[in-house]
């Protein structure tokens, strides 16, 4: 159960095979069912980014900035995919033995062929390494794409690209290595992060918080009408995110078996609990439950269950999702206004806070008494403490690095567009086009 995460080297490539599945000996085999599932999971995660996240974010901004959001998400995706193949995969999972870095052995995916195999959580089964590379590539792409919500409607396009390229290099790849590679620092602490509560959500959330402060608030904040221009599209995006997230969570199981089934059902129930909780809180505090609230709860629940999907139980997941909604609501509706940072699309409020709740909550809800997969000797206190340490390392590494990179970006390209361009809208000023013509 828990122990298998360490033994088979998890998402790290401890057992690399260069030959196809063997027939007679007791070596690991490639199961076509596992491969089919992983192929599908990979494209589900791409679907989460385009058009899922693109529309979710796009609908939340004013119509004059719609295309800029779509563009930033699209370009980040393409750029990070190229970077991943060139050096990202190597830095994260290149087989290097250091705790922070995977090394240069797999630059340009050197040595990887269609017959190369990668380990799964089961000693007996492997999947093609290209599938693993592609699957992880989508994770590397979505994480920086999440950050754009923090500085939407005012960021310079060139700044987005430059910051993203540096950020994945210095934050994402090292944290992915630390958490998911068998030689990683956080992995070897025994932290549980099934699909990326720390690697994806806390990373994106902290970078977003730092960015929203350093970039500064939108012109007219608090005075101008900045309501979402299309809650309809936002819900379309949210729905796509939920569907795609099954690839994100259940695909992180790397095999098509009971583990994937557990991750799948958790991805249902946590989200359901979160939607209900956010709507309930909103109905109580605001008087009416809104579509924006339900969609926000939806995402908060998914974020929270991301690190926990493979190790908690489905009923515990409902509670975890509900808890995430309540806390995220508080940060989004109260804390943000109180401190005045313009995290425009609530990346920190939902991904950052939801990720922290989920990561720490994983330590609690993995307990067998709460329906989790923990063994008889499972200690809530000690695992939760490990989770907290993992979260803290991620926050510090990401926070400091993001701040430095933002200032570097500011010096090279500048961060914000000119005031007039911001007022005109980024679609026209940065991209020379309009989303809608009346």
């Amino acid at each position, binding site marked *: 159960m828990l122990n298998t995460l360490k033994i088979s080297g998890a998402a790290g490539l401890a057992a690399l095979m260069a030959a196809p599945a063997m027939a007679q000996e007791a070596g690991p085999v490639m199961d076509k069912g596992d491969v089919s599932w992983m192929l599908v999971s990979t494209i589900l995660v791409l679907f989460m980014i385009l058009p899922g996240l693109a529309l979710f974010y796009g609908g939340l901004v004013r119509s004059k900035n719609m295309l800029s959001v779509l563009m930033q998400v699209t370009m980040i995706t393409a750029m990070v995919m190229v970077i991943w193949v060139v050096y990202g995969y190597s830095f994260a999972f290149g087989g290097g033995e250091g705790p922070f870095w995977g090394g240069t052995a797999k630059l340009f995916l050197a040595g990887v062929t269609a017959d190369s195999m990668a380990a799964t959580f089961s000693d007996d089964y492997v999947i093609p390494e290209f599938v693993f590379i592609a699957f992880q590539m989508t994770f590397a792409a979505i994480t920086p794409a999440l950050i754009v919500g923090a500085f939407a409607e005012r960021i310079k396009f060139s700044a987005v690209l430059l910051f993203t390229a540096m950020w994945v290099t210095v934050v994402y790849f090292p944290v992915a290595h630390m958490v998911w590679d068998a030689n990683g620092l956080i992995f070897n602490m025994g932290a549980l992060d099934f699909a990326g509560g720390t690697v994806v959500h806390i990373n994106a959330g902290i970078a977003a918080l730092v960015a929203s402060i350093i970039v500064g608030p939108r012109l007219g904040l608090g005075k101008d009408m*900045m*309501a979402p221009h299309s809650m309809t599209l936002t819900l379309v995006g949210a729905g796509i995110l939920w569907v795609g997230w099954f690839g994100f969570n259940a695909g992180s199981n790397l095999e098509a078996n009971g583990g994937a089934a557990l991750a799948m059902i958790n991805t249902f129930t946590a989200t359901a609990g979160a939607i209900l909780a956010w709507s309930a809180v909103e109905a109580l505090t605001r008087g009416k439950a809104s579509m*924006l609230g339900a969609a926000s709860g939806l995402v908060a629940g998914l974020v929270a269950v991301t690190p926990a999907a493979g190790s908690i139980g489905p009923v515990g997941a409902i509670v975890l999702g509900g808890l995430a909604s309540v806390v995220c609501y508080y940060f*989004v509706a109260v804390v943000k*206004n109180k401190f005045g940072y313009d995290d425009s699309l*609530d990346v920190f409020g939902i991904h950052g806070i939801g990720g922290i709740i989920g990561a720490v909550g994983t330590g609690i809800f993995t307990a067998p008494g709460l329906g989790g997969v923990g063994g008889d000797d499972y200690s809530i206190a000690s695992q939760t403490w490990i989770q907290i340490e993992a979260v803290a390392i991620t926050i510090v590494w990401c926070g400091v690095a993001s701040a430095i990179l933002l200032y570097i970006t500011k010096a090279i390209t500048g961060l914000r567009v000119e005031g007039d361009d911001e007022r005109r809208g980024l679609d026209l000023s940065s991209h020379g086009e309009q989303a809608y013509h009346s």
Partner: protein
Amino acid sequence: MKLIIATIKPFKLEEVREAVTATGVRGMMVTEIKGFGSQSGHTEIYRGAEYAVNFVPKVKLEIAVPDSIADEVVSAIAKTAKTDKIGDGKIFVLDLESALRVRTGETNEDAL
């Protein structure tokens, strides 16, 4: 000739149109507008960000009529647009100096 400018509640448009055309008027211009008068707007809250929406959607009618039926048209509008609640609207009457039908060149009352 007179130019009648009326603001009414949007859901009243069809009713008003019927009453106006019953007086013999054969055309009108309709614009969707927003405005405020005695009726106040509303507040929207998006994830804790509160927006006061001070304008209310209305429909504006512009109708050019001969002097002879101007009063009748104003009454027709007033009667059908009324709901006895604030925000029912206003009707203004302006003197219209000239009119021209583009297709035929007819002028003034012949153009209406």
